[in-house]
């Protein structure tokens, strides 16, 4: 099968035209060149004949369909035999036609209106056609051609686009690119507004969360204040106790001095080791630490 669809089409058309000429002329000259005009005229004449018969209401419509199908199948068979079938398409087409004819003639009444007939024909041939087309478009050769076409088309489109841009630019008119640039600025601006909006929502959500925690925080604060008050009160009481201790120590010192002045009673006096502070000075140190 040729890779180029145009080449395939030409081969197919050539074969069909040759077959058509042979079928119509019946001259058996297989090398006679195809005559597209004659082909068209013959086809047109056939259509006109069928049309006239329909319009006149001549004959049973089902019989007409049968005739049409018979003639068409016969034509394709002759065309295939006469012109060869380099693409293989005609052979498949023939098989499809035969299959359709058999299906339709198997007992199903043939419809009177063209559309219903076409639909039945489509239903009968759809799968064959699909697989046939599927085979063609799924080949590497088809892809080679398509790929080249795509490259050419994309290159052509890009050139056209550049040329149009240049043309409008020379006319001092805004181009699509200019408008796109402005739109891009707007989109970027919108993005910044979105960010601010998002930040505000986060802030709102955060503030909302803080407010919900406020009663707990206030309770904690109250507890801390109470604790501070109690601590202050304790400090005052401690100072008072220290004051009393100082007074006691002073009294004890006086008492000790008085006792030292009395030599007759040394046994009652508490001896202090050298280097150890007196009770008064130890108390003062303790106060300083606190």
């Amino acid at each position, binding site marked *: 099968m040729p890779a180029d669809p145009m080449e395939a089409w030409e081969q197919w058309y050539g074969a069909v035209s040759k077959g058509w000429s042979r079928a119509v002329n019946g001259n058996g000259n297989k090398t006679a060149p195809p005559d597209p005009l004659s082909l068209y005229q013959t086809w047109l004449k056939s259509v006109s004949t069928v049309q006239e018969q329909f319009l006149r209401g001549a004959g049973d419509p089902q019989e007409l369909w049968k005739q049409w199908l018979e003639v068409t199948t016969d034509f394709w068979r002759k065309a295939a035999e006469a012109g060869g079938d380099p693409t293989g398409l005609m052979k498949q087409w023939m098989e499809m036609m035969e299959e359709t004819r058999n299906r339709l003639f198997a007992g199903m009444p043939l419809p009177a209106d063209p559309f219903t007939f076409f639909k039945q024909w*489509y239903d009968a041939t*759809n799968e064959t056609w*699909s697989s046939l087309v599927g085979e063609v478009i799924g080949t590497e050769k088809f892809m080679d051609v398509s790929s080249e076409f795509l*490259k050419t088309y*994309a290159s052509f489109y890009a050139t056209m686009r550049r040329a149009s841009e240049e043309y409008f630019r020379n006319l001092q008119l805004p181009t699509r690119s200019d408008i796109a640039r402005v739109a891009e600025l707007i989109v970027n601006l919108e993005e910044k507004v979105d960010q601010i909006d998002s930040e505000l929502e986060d802030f709102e*959500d955060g503030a909302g969360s803080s407010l919900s925690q406020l009663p707990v925080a206030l309770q904690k604060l109250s507890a801390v204040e109470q604790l501070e008050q109690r601590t202050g009160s304790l400090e005052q009481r401690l100072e008072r106790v220290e004051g009393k201790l100082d007074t006691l120590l002073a009294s004890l010192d006086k008492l000790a001095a008085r006792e030292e002045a009395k030599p007759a009673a040394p046994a009652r006096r508490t001896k202090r080791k050298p280097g150890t502070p007196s009770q008064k000075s130890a108390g003062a140190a303790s106060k300083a630490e606190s």
Partner: protein
Amino acid sequence: MDTRDETGHKPGSSFEDALKKYREGMQIILEGAKADTGQTPKEVIWTKNKAKLYHYQPATPVTYPVPILLVYALINRPYVLDLMPGNSLVEFLVGKGFNVYMLDWGTPGDEDKNLSFDNYVLDYIPQAVKKMLRNAHAGEFTLLGYCMGGTMSAMYAALFPGKPLKNLILLTAPIGFTADDMGLFGLWTSEKYFDPDLLADAYGNVPGEVIDSGNRMLKPVTNYVGTYVTMWDRILQNKPMDTWLAMSKWVNDGVPFPGAAFKQWIREFYQQNKLVKGEIKLRGQMVNLTNITCPVLNIAGTKDHICTPPQAEATMRLISSQDKEFYVIDAGHVGLLTGSNARKDLWPKIWRWLEPRSQ
């Protein structure tokens, strides 16, 4: 009384009827399908550039405290998740008492051609999650990603594991990009034949029609011929057209793919299969899917040719979640999401899976 008109035809006669139907069909072909889609009541609670975050108004009291965030692909419109009344996943979930949000990426302009997955996964989704949680007064959420949105959701889950992400649902999300698993896409996107820079640099943003053509060409006969055969059949047989119109509108309503993201998607995902190798880096951060530990429901369709089942199944081998399930539905990429099969299969499945995990 003879009511024939000047052409000799009676009003309501078969000729007039046929003409009317012909006109109807041709109008759809020429002007495109028109349908009221995305009708579940919603409000926009946040916007960023072209993206919007929708909050669907609860039809019933919200019974599940964990909200759901729907993330869709960058291509196509997300209203396929809320196609039309009676045929909407969103409507179904809202009706079951879920608090549903959806991230709509919008239509990128030329100025967005440099947006990449780094922006979408690291900036857009986290900010949308933050807004959603604030709006829903919730601490956790379920992330539901569809198609490429599923791939992005998986990357988000890998980069932001733990709270607030509680559950992850991946709907036809391609994770593995082994060429053999991708069918025709494997061939079409191979480095040998396809250079994403060519298209992205030529267009800036790759047009929706181009992306759509690629998807349609996977089944050209069905998509280019079969669709219209179905249309004419429905018109001529007087069958309801609502669903066909809505789907047709959606299929033809593609959005451009930002150039930088397109390059990344084709090169790093399709051509180099970096996600399963743990080599995707978003703004310097390595995307390691083994970081995902939350409950995961991973859904694929047997007839899906855009994300084949093996592509979706790759997730199961990579994530560390203990609570994980791979569920396969006999449907295609979109058929899985809408229609009578979805009503019977997908939607109840999601609901039943989420129910115990959304308390």
